[in-house]
């Protein structure tokens, strides 16, 4: 197998694996935090605004992890800086 095809195969596999795990684990974390927020909401419905606000901020924090994975995967697929070494 030539260097180039090995590079393409491995970067595609790595990107797919990265996006799979990078979506799975933040999804678990988001589900966990939403279920906790629902419990808190059923216990104290009057604190709805504060709970919703901190839930949204927490979800944004967790979501940004998945977004980092996406950005890195896009870099690996479209703008891989290591490709230069192979082409020269």
């Amino acid at each position: 197998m030539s260097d180039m095809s090995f590079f393409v195969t491995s970067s595609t596999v790595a990107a797919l694996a990265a996006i799979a795990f990078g979506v799975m684990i933040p999804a678990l974390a988001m589900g966990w935090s939403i279920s906790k927020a629902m419990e808190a909401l059923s216990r104290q419905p009057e604190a709805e605004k504060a709970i919703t606000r901190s839930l949204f901020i927490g979800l944004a924090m967790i979501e940004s992890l998945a977004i980092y994975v996406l950005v890195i995967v896009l870099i690996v697929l479209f703008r891989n800086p290591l490709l230069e070494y192979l082409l020269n």
Partner: protein
Amino acid sequence: MQEALLTQTIYFEIGPLAFSQSLVTSLTLTILLVLLAASLTHHLLITPTKLQSMAEAIMGVIENAINEVLPQYSRQVLPFIATLWLFLLFANLVGLIPGLQSPTRDLSITAALAILVFFSVHWFGIRSQGLANYLRHYLKPNPLLLPFHLISEFTRTVALAIRLFGNMMSLEIAALLVLLVAGFLAPIPILMLHIIEALVQAYIFGMLALVYVAGSIQSQIISRKHSMTRA
């Protein structure tokens, strides 16, 4: 296609300054918002017209949201946070108009907004309690934690920029990919998701900026109260 996904088309250049599509869009948006605000506040009446009461309702919602986080300083931070919210809302939604792109899918624009947030956090912190008091909170609870404070200042600014950029870009890429695969009418649910996501991301960006500003103001108030009760 790759080029269109990750880079920006440049319209024209003046010297070293390149006017990309996102820069032109956001400048136009800024001018339009300023004109809109000026025309809405030009003739304020005691018995409001329809437009005025609409604008007042929007400002009321924003003011309530800020009041819940930062009751004592809401007047001080309201202009900055409200501007962020309104600008981001329109900037995210502009991508839905055919032929236009959201300026927030350009990392330069979101980075500029995140840098604004970074500086205003320190500005509001110093303004509320003075420079010495503000710098002292970096040494609390222990001077050993100073590097962690500095790292968190840096990373949360980067995270703010990357989060907005990644969200808007991935939404547009998702719509584009669905369009390539399925074609006619299929991307419409994705575009509906785009509307919700635009609202949520604008809310989150402004809310995080507000929480950071509130943190820099309140960390000193709490520590001052603490030292007063101890004394």
